[in-house]
């Protein structure tokens, strides 16, 4: 059984991105990049399933430019068996990526596809669901536990107000929540070894799919900042200040 994991390259979560002065996009020149945190959970889970003997191969796939080699190498260093980069000169949007990913899933005959539940740059949270729909596969989003049992995956999902457990026939698509697992650290020798592993490249345009962007980015703004507040010296002062606000009864 093959597991495919989608790995996105994003700005490191500790970095506060800036908007370009002309408001055309965010300025990420020279900014530290890394694996989307949720995708690390996805890789980790795939590796654990393989270690449990439930899977035979873990393949990492990323979409974008050759800059994505670094996140694929990270996946290889964590323990993925192979890595594929789908290269596209055009900027990709969710629907386009999902169509390309579908092509890779079918080519690889993967039985389980694990993605992150959302990317921390776009905060879209759509890809797993879109992919599942395009493949007509069952989906389990926001997974906090995954068990494989024969041809079935039992997944507990984190939902508003609690959890939900569902059973899916394989092949299926699952998206990882942060609490799915604790991703392993990458050891330096593994990283060195991963540098030597080949990364397969596919040219997106050769797949003959409609990956044209559907959304036009008109402008990028910094959100309005809150007015600076004040420090109070005591609980009494805090309560009296709050009471002075209209509508707040304390």
């Amino acid at each position: 059984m093959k597991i495919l994991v989608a790995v996105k390259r994003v700005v490191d979560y500790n970095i506060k991105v800036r908007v370009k002065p002309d408001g055309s996009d965010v300025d990420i020149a020279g900014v530290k990049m890394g694996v989307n945190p949720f995708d690390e959970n996805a890789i980790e889970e795939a590796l654990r399933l393989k270690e449990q003997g439930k899977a035979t191969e873990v393949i990492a796939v990323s979409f974008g430019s050759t800059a994505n080699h670094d996140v694929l190498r990270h996946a290889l260093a964590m323990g993925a068996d192979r890595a594929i980069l789908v290269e596209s000169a055009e900027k990709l949007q969710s629907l386009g990526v999902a169509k390309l990913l579908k092509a890779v899933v079918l080519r690889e005959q993967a039985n389980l596809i694990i993605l992150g539940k959302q990317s921390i740059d776009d905060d879209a949270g759509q890809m797993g669901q879109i992919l599942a729909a395009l493949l007509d596969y069952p989906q389990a989003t926001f997974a906090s536990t995954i068990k494989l049992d024969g041809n079935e995956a039992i997944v507990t999902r984190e939902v508003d107000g609690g959890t939900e457990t569902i059973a899916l026939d394989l092949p299926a698509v699952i998206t990882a929540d942060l609490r799915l697992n604790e991703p392993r650290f990458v050891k330096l020798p593994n990283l060195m070894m991963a540098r030597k592993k080949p990364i397969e490249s596919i040219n997106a345009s050769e797949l003959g799919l409609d990956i044209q962007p559907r959304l036009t980015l008109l402008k990028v703004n910094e959100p309005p900042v809150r007015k600076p507040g004040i420090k109070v010296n005591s609980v009494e002062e805090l309560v009296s200040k709050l009471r002075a606000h209209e509508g707040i009864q304390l």
Partner: protein
Amino acid sequence: MKTLILAEHNGKELSPAVQQAVTAAQFWQAPIDLLVAGGNDAILQTAASIQGVTRVIHANAAHLAHPLAEDIANLVVSLAEDYQVILASHSSYSRNVLPRVSALLDVAMISNALTIQADNTYTRSCYAGNVHYVVQSIDKTQVLTIHGSNFAAASLGANTEIINIDAPAAFTKTRWVSETHNLSHRPALSSAKIVISGGRSLGSAEKFEEVLSPLAAKLGAALGATRAAVDAGYAPNDIQVGQTGVVVAPELYFAIGVSGAVQHTYGMKDSKIIVAINQDPDAPIFQVADYGLVADLFDVVPKLTEEVNSRN
């Protein structure tokens, strides 16, 4: 052309966020249909009472008792032809279903729109709320979730027609097994007027409860938590506030022993008034707080609890 709202409910009640979705839908000045999948009479009655709705469409079938994304998406798609806009309030339910709908319609979906503007243009927040994108869609059907707290709730009091329809056959490759509810006597986090959030500094589940509960009880507040507190097991996962949890915008938000990481502030910085209690004067939370108190929370929270009057 018309607008379709996917109306969320929990089997017992209609989600209050549906009223906000109705206000958002009014932007298009087209007839608004509310789709209720499964559910009981009380849910339908509430749906039918929302002002501004043209029709309530009720789809009932045994397999809709525990809504699965695949079944709800197929249901929405079976109706989609008549609609130019399909929307819902952003929640774990709509985030599960609507991307699937968008893919089946071959359109791009807009997640968590903060504003709706003319010509299919929307503001979205990206990078944990550090950046706002203004995007325009070229698709013929608009599929989106809206940021509920940015839209006023449509009022109740109407008596709208309810139409019953059949649902497409069950998907069957996914089966519901079980669910757990984090039962709480407190108000729902996403709609509470006051939210009290605690961080890792509370130190244990017992302390989290012991220190924050009496204040929450007195103020009729909901409890929230940081990811660090949830990961440490001090609080249940469904009360995590932030980029990857719940986004809240109450009248009053208390951040208690919370450092103020952007992933957390994403989920609360639209609150009307923010109070932060932290012993570190340089904690980033003070940059978004209207009132900051530099103190040991274990000293001042009990005092604060004593000082405020009970709102019950």
